[in-house]
């Protein structure tokens, strides 16, 4: 099985299974919690997603384009 197939299998296994989705999500970050913690995080996830969606529903227009990096000289780290 090539890596693409393997990824496809893992995805199909996890779809609709919050526990498996959480396991896969955290594995990408190098974290493999025990099942009881995974269960707790899987229960917290929908609420977090709702809050994230609320952020994306706010019209920020063109007031700012992204997180801002300032190369100014007024901060202590400046020239």
């Amino acid at each position, binding site marked *: 099985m090539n890596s693409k197939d393997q990824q496809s299998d893992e995805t199909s296994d996890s779809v609709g299974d919050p526990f498996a989705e959480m396991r896969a999500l955290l594995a990408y970050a190098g974290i493999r919690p025990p099942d009881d*913690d995974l269960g*707790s995080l899987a229960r917290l996830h929908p609420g977090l997603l709702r*809050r994230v969606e609320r952020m994306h529903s706010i019209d920020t227009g063109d*007031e700012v384009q992204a997180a801002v990096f300032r190369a100014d000289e007024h901060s202590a780290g400046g020239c």
Partner: protein
Amino acid sequence: MPWTIEGAARDLRAGEITCEQLTAEMVDAADRLDPELGTYLARFDDEALLAARQADAELASGRDRGPLHGIPLGIKDIIATDEGPTTAQSLVQPQEWGAQGDGPLMARLRDAGAVVMGKTTTMEYAVGRPDFTKPFPIPRNPWNPDRWTGGSSSGTANGIASGQFLGGLGTDTGGSVRLPAAYCGISGHKPTFGLVPKSGCIPLGLSYDHIGPMARTAWDCAAMLTVMAGADPSDRTTVRRERVDYVSGLSGDLAATSIGVIRNQAIADATSESMMEVFDGAVADMATGGAKIESFEVPLYEAMAEGTFMALQAEAFAWHRSTLGTKWPEYGRPTRLTIAQGAMISAGDLVQIERVRQVARHRVLKAMDDAGVSVLVSPTTGYAATPFSGADPKAVSMAAIHTPAWNSTGFPAMSVPMGFDEDELPCGLQIIGRPFADAEVLRVGHAYQQLTNWHEGVAPIHA
């Protein structure tokens, strides 16, 4: 024995007490109260008494370093000091991290003559809840030891409220200076982001963290902030500005001060009737004192509050990622579950949170301009100190903490005592100002404390 930094500074110069006597009294108080209240993770009794004797010798020789000369302080144990390790109240934190010793902020306090009494309790890495499964003291509230102090600057708050030291340092990422100040009946100030250097402090949310002074009164916080404020090259988030003597700006009255009273429904919905009655009384007192009162709706208030918690989780995750992978079981459960949620927030999500943050910040400032107000006020929390078990779920919900929006904007915000609820527990009044208008926030807090005596309340468990 003096209760405040202001009173101690006066008594020391009047010869009514020495720095050594003051420190010795505080050591005695810790001997009696720390075991019950869980104030300290480490005490530096010998070093403190030595520093106090040196402070006495300097005063005797005519060298006076200012209001903090000989003043005993407690330091939250995520801030490194010369005396000992920094544990972050965690089994994960490497012992050698604290070996770096004083950062610029601690060096400033020490140069101002402060006496470091010890390192105070927090929640693990300043997140989560009190964790009874770990081998650390549980910080208890001097007004009722079955109640929590609030966090995460827990030991600093209960140490001041119980008379084990006169001031101290807390850190505030979502409210961790203001919340324990409110729960314990003291004053606490979150400075403008960029005013106080954070080098030497373990980060939680890198762009939401603030180190702030905690003490009994706004005057005491102003004296501490005067020493603490100022840019340092070791912290590139700090901003170079003219130095300010925050004590000299304490006019003592509210005449011609326009105050916006936050009336967002989200706050009303998450605040008890008892707390709201106390808050309305505080607003009435300020009006009696000459303030002009305006009703104020904070734009994007809930988005700022929710964005703070999500972004701090993402930022904390960035700092803890490698250790979470290798030491998961050694973290306390509340801590690891909180930080791991940062892995669920995508890069795109974080960018949007940051965009909302910046838009909200501009809209709040514009709304303040349009209303002509210099500060905003709200209850610091919706409920007073919560019990360790059996708490009303509304009282322990994140919505009942009215502080995190101001970590999003980075505006200065402080909590001062404003009365007691139906259970005789302290309630906090939050005062919020424009960026770098810390002097105005402290001025309003101090003027309110000239109108009221809530800050003089004595907790049942006290030295």
